[in-house]
């Protein structure tokens, strides 16, 4: 069944419960990821991209909760699964890697042990088999001398090595979906490129779909086939990654694209300095009425301040939410 999406999010709403008041941190978010596809979610800090990811794996904790919409993984609604079955999905069919390779590994346990634990936990292997598989997993993320490295503790490894170990752990059980939440933000640029390359190759080899979350539009567009841009809890534009660079449609996306430094092309475009988006992201408790981007938008008119824009379908499966989209 290649036709059915791996994960399908429909009209997701996540509330932040503050005493008796509830504010929507994420609202009306819909997207789908097919098997083996790479999908990017881009946005500033606090726009709701990370809590969307947490909702996907069923790990939202109070004060946050899902208050509307559905998340279907492989045809089944995640919210309706029991806690035990949700847990069985995590790490096994949906895995996640994090921004901080420094803190995401247990400091008192050898890395091989931490990889092996995944096989014991999800595949019911014995520790002896699992230890062997851990060496193979470490070899697959191109850590040199894996049979010696499995005995190392996290503090003995560099940041790049640790992120490799994290990838080995995440991909250990051959998940269908890998969620990468800012996987390279804490790394050097050169290491960053290696890690991204590694992640992309491994996932392509195994047919693992990737949901990449980042504030770095350039990086995401480089890795992913499709990109969704989030602003203040809503998806404002979703396009193929080539399209989003060539012809960004939403003013916010345009702002993002124009604020990216690009080698060589800037002079060709006749611009001498990078442009920035004026203003700041609104606080979650006082999102403006209408289009949430309107206070910062150069094209804003009266309708933007009163009515939230509907989805407009663009060609090639793209969509945008703006009254005045380009």
């Amino acid at each position: 069944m290649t036709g059915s999406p791996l994960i399908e999010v429909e009209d997701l709403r996540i509330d932040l419960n503050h005493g008796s008041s509830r504010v929507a941190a994420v609202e009306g978010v819909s997207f789908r990821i097919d098997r083996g596809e790479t999908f990017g979610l881009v946005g500033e800090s606090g726009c709701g991209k990370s809590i969307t990811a947490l909702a996907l794996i069923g790990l939202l904790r109070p004060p946050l909760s899902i208050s509307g919409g559905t998340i279907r993984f492989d045809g089944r609604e995640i919210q309706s699964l029991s806690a035990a079955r949700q847990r069985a999905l995590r790490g096994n069919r949906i895995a996640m890697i994090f921004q901080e390779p420094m803190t995401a590994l247990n400091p008192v346990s050898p890395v091989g042990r931490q990889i092996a634990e995944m096989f014991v936990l999800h595949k019911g292997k014995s520790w002896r088999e699992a230890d062997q598989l851990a060496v193979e997993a470490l070899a697959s993320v191109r850590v040199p001398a894996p049979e010696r490295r499995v005995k190392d503790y996290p503090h003995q490894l560099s940041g790049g090595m640790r992120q490799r170990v994290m990838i080995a752990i995440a991909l250990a059980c051959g998940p269908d979906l890998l969620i990468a939440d800012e996987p390279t933000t804490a790394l050097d640029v050169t290491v960053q490129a290696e890690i991204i390359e590694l992640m992309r190759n491994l996932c392509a080899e195994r047919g693992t779909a990737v949901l990449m979350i980042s504030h770095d539009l350039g990086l995401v567009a480089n890795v992913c086939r499709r990109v969704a841009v989030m602003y203040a809890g809503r998806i404002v534009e979703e396009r193929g990654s080539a399209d989003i660079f060539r012809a960004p449609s939403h003013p916010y996306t345009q702002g993002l694209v124009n604020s990216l430094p690009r080698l060589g092309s800037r002079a060709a475009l006749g611009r001498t300095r990078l442009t920035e988006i004026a203003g700041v992201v609104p606080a979650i408790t006082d999102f403006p009425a209408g289009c949430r981007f309107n206070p910062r938008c150069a094209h804003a008119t009266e309708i933007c301040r009163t009515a939230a824009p509907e989805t407009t379908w663009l060609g090639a499966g793209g969509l945008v939410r703006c009254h005045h989209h380009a």
Partner: protein
Amino acid sequence: MKLRANLIIGGALFALAIVVGLLAPWLAHTDPVLDANLMNAEEAPSWTWWFGTDAQGRDIYSRVVYGARISLTVGIVSQLINSVIGVGLGLSAGYWGGWWDDFVNGLTNLMLAIPSLIFALAIMAVLGPGLTSLLIALGLTNWSFTCRLARASALSLRSQGYVQAARVLGYGDLRIMITQLLPNMLGPIIVIGTLGMGSAVLSEAALSFLGLGVRPPFPSWGSMLSEAREQITTAPWLSVFPGLAIFLTVLGLNLLGDGLRDILDPQSRSRRI
């Protein structure tokens, strides 16, 4: 690493006590209970009777050596029970929070409010004297500090990246507590445990002194002190040697605890560097 005097002296004293307890049958000169001989009652320490003899003519040296077994068994086993209870309650309370945390906190405060020796006395009074009831009484009354510590560690550890990561990777709560939280809080728990052993040895002595510990004629350091009370002016060696044994063991455990804290506590380590 710098040589740490307290660690070495403490470890040596504790090791000595353990070796003496283990090798008691070979180290003792006479049977501590049966070899009573009124012909040589209340002999002062000499080359024949290293620590002297008591009113029944039993060799004090042999009784102190055998007494190590009981004192250390009580110290180690009851502290193990305390650690298991304290870590179990504190770790789960800190990790889960909510009503369970409130409940455990209340229980801990209750335990801290009642002097533990009095509580142990009450339990002993119900269970009757003897080694088993001594272990139970001391094992149930001194877990509050371990519990507090485990709870505080769990609270700070549960927001660590690797604990979050474990949750995302499908670890169950129990597995997270055992594989992620417990190993990371083990240092301070061991330190508290070592110090707790010292106080358990003292509590055993106190309860035995009050006649609620090990039944005579079996020797424990506390019960020996208790028996020696009457003759403290006429035969001071009866109380000096068991007292010295308690003192050295507890001192050793406290020094060991301090030394371990210096090694295991990352904060004190970074301060030194």
